[in-house]
């Protein structure tokens, strides 16, 4: 599949129909997830704040998932110097920043009524903030260097360094005594929650994933066109 898509022409032909299809799948899944979300009863401990879980957990999951995509694309662009891999990395960063910002903001809005505080320097919260700073740093570094090839290389190295933070984010609730609850979705022995909450949560996770897939493809297509426009402008300038 990867071999097939590294050809820009084939990628453009594939993404032309895949992006809108993934967008439609995301809309359908989100509609189903939200419909079940607002039929679920309030949690016996958290009350109605449980509704925040259906938008916070998928955003938190995506903040890590998108960074993993950014890391793989950066690795491929560094090793193979492939323009499409660099475009994929560059296209993933703003989306990951959005998901991580959402995880932090919705987490804060969930933390206030459940923990009694908007923010605490807890291992999970702090490592997600560091993840956010890696995304912002990646975009800032790429924008700060004029030579596009050098900028892509420097940003890719920073992205690979940031990969160290991913296991810290994921296992922070296991390794340290954290105010944040342990993982109830991706855990050994399977998810630990009633089906009435698990079904809408999984639907929302898949909706976010499909939405990311659609937007990622759209942004990579934009990057391909941007490079084509730059090449055409250079040729025109002689």
């Amino acid at each position, binding site marked *: 599949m990867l071999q097939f898509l590294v050809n820009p022409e084939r990628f453009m032909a594939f993404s032309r129909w895949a992006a809108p299809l993934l967008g439609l799948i995301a809309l359908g899944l989100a509609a189903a997830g939200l419909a079940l979300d607002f039929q679920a009863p309030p949690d016996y401990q958290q009350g109605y704040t449980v*509704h925040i879980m259906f938008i916070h957990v998928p955003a938190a999951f995506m903040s890590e998932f998108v960074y993993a995509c950014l890391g793989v694309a950066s690795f491929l662009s560094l090793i193979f110097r492939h323009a499409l891999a660099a475009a994929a990395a560059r296209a993933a960063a703003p*989306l990951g920043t959005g998901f991580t*910002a959402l995880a932090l903001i919705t987490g804060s809005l969930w933390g206030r009524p459940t923990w009694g505080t908007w923010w605490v320097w807890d291992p999970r919260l702090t490592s997600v903030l560091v993840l956010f700073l890696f995304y912002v740093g990646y975009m800032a570094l790429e924008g700060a260097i004029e030579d596009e090839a050098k900028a892509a290389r420097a940003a890719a190295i920073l992205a690979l360094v940031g990969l160290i933070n991913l296991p810290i984010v994921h296992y922070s609730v296991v390794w340290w005594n954290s105010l944040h609850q342990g993982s109830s979705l991706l855990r050994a022995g399977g998810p630990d929650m009633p089906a009435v909450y698990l079904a809408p949560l999984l639907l929302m996770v898949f909706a976010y994933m499909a939405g990311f897939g659609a937007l990622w493809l759209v942004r990579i297509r934009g990057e391909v066109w941007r490079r084509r426009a730059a090449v055409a402008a250079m040729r025109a300038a002689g």
Partner: protein
Amino acid sequence: MFDFDAGRYAVFVWPAYAVTGLVFAVLILDSLLRARRWRRAAEAPKPEDPA
């Protein structure tokens, strides 16, 4: 059927949904407008192209 009541937690629940909707709207619009702009730039007739 649907229960949109968030009780005394409405002040936390609805802003969380509003921010999520806003961030998604920004990501979608930014992605589509960016792609459209570069597509137009890439497909614009070049000086050497016959009109």
